[in-house]
């Protein structure tokens, strides 16, 4: 489930409010979105992917809130990172075009 929006990283662009398919967020008064309906989160990671500031953390557990803190996530290097893996963001190459995609397919087909 979505666990955290880092106030220090968030650039208040509201992308997460727009893109969340299950409408988990509300716009916050100070511009930083609020996790208003956490239990509606379907753990799809899409908000994280669209967040330009790597300010969000979706914990893998789909059933229960994990209760993480920003400090511990920072320390473990877990904040953000999905965008990088998928190759989204300026100067990155989309993973869709990676030569491994083809190589894997060629290997898997019996």
């Amino acid at each position: 489930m979505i666990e955290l929006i880092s106030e220090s990283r968030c650039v208040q662009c509201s992308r997460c409010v727009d893109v969340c398919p299950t409408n988990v967020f509300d716009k916050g008064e100070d511009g930083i979105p609020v996790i208003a309906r956490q239990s509606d989160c379907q753990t799809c990671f899409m908000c994280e992917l669209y967040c330009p500031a790597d300010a969000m953390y979706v914990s893998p557990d789909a059933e229960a809130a994990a209760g993480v803190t920003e400090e511990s996530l920072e320390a473990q290097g877990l904040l953000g990172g999905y965008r990088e893996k998928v190759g989204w963001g300026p100067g990155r190459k989309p993973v869709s075009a990676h030569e491994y995609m083809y190589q894997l397919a060629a290997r898997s087909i019996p």
Partner: protein
Amino acid sequence: MTIQEAEQTWAGGLRLEGDVLVIGGGPAGTWAALTAASHGARVVLADKGYCGTSGATAPSGTGVWYVEPDREAREEARQSRFGLGGRLAEEDWMNRVLDRTYENMNRLSGFGYPFPKDEAGRPYRRGLQGPEYMRLMRRLVQKAGVTILDHSPALELLGDAHGVGGARGVRTQTGEAWEVRAGAVIIATGGCAFLSKALGTNVLTGDGYLLAAEAGADLSGMEFSNAYGISPVFSSVTKTAYYRYATFYYEDGTEVEGAGSARGRSVIARQLLAGRQVYARLDKAPEDVKPLLRVGQTNFFLPFDRAGIDPFTDLFPVTLRLEGTVRGTGGIRIADESCRTAVPGLYAAGDAATRELICGGFTGGGSHNAAWAMSSGSFAGEGAAAYAHSLGPLAGRRELKGLSSTTVTAASAGDRSDRPKEHIRAVQEEVMPYDRNLFRTEAGLRASVGRLDGIWRDIRSGASSLGAHAVQAREAAAMTATARWMYRSGLARTETRGMHKREDYPEQDSGQHYRLRSGGLDEVWVQPEPLRKEVAAQ
């Protein structure tokens, strides 16, 4: 509240007119919108979530049934799942879908989708990464001049004596009502996974089936609705394909005999049913394939990385999450090649429509669904645009009324506001357990049908107030209706065929080589539909 007051409530919100209204913005809906627009239609697309991130494809990505137009390759493709699907597919439809998918995938290349290259430097087009694919589709739809309504679930269709002519819903971020009048409506709302949290499926609650049935359309293949995906217990990511590299274990490290990702899923289910936790480890992945796997499905590894687990070396607990009709094959019955339903003006595409035409009683994912979504979407887009144009001056002179079978009002729902949650929980108790849905028996199905009928009666006896509450109430109604069509069809098929498994009838019965149509709201009916002999492939 009187009907007139209710009409005014709807009228108070956003009102739009168009030629074609597309409900749902996944691959099927976006291809439908794009195609209708390219045929000169004014198109509105309404999605429950956000077109581009919502639905089963967006967070995932899919293998695609992309086959070169080579005689042998095509023949192999047609045969590949024909037997597995209980020989209910049709050769004509397979050919049309193979052709259209080939065409559409090549067009995606032209539109800028970054396909990887094979050794010869040619684009390799057998798969699509969901986030990239759906972001591109949204852009194309916008560029084509389509009006997109995000966070705008449809709650009911509008219709008159001429057929369907629009829909209404609510905009969940503002609470405002919306209404779109259109010559033709395409339902592309995806399947129903019963809020199981399988990756990306919680927006998929069977709404389109209910909308269509309320307008008088029927369904087909609803017994093929019991797909379960393997996922770690602590995660929503149901990517069963990678478990071909897994060995399954008990807690003490001994192997679960016969367990597997393809045919061995039932073995896992039986252990879980018996209360034994099953673990997996991807220890069959060859060393040189591991880095390829990590790139191939980036988000498969995300949960493991975050939980500090190396799935290649560590054991992790697994479960089977219901994917229902998303990776099943049942859905709204298609009446002709334009993806028309039984009701004039109403079209269906993607998981919302039956996929028996190309894969019979078995998909389980892997390429056919994605191919069906993009090709049926574009067939429906063409069909709906042509139909809307054929209406001519009639389009402006219709007396449309809401077709919902459950009352949605502006008045307060009073003390019933918790009812949808209770209904949803009650339906989940009928459809999620493996011993009810995966392993089916006469007694089990009958008992479930009785309880589901009770839930339906309770839903019908009350109203729900317009707004977020109405969305959940309609989801509860749609899930209940879907489960009733599923299980009544499951009862009628006294054999094991495709993904429909009857414990009491473990064999395929050649006397039941037909499809099952179903429909009805208060009274559910099921009827065999003979296959057209000349189109059934060998």
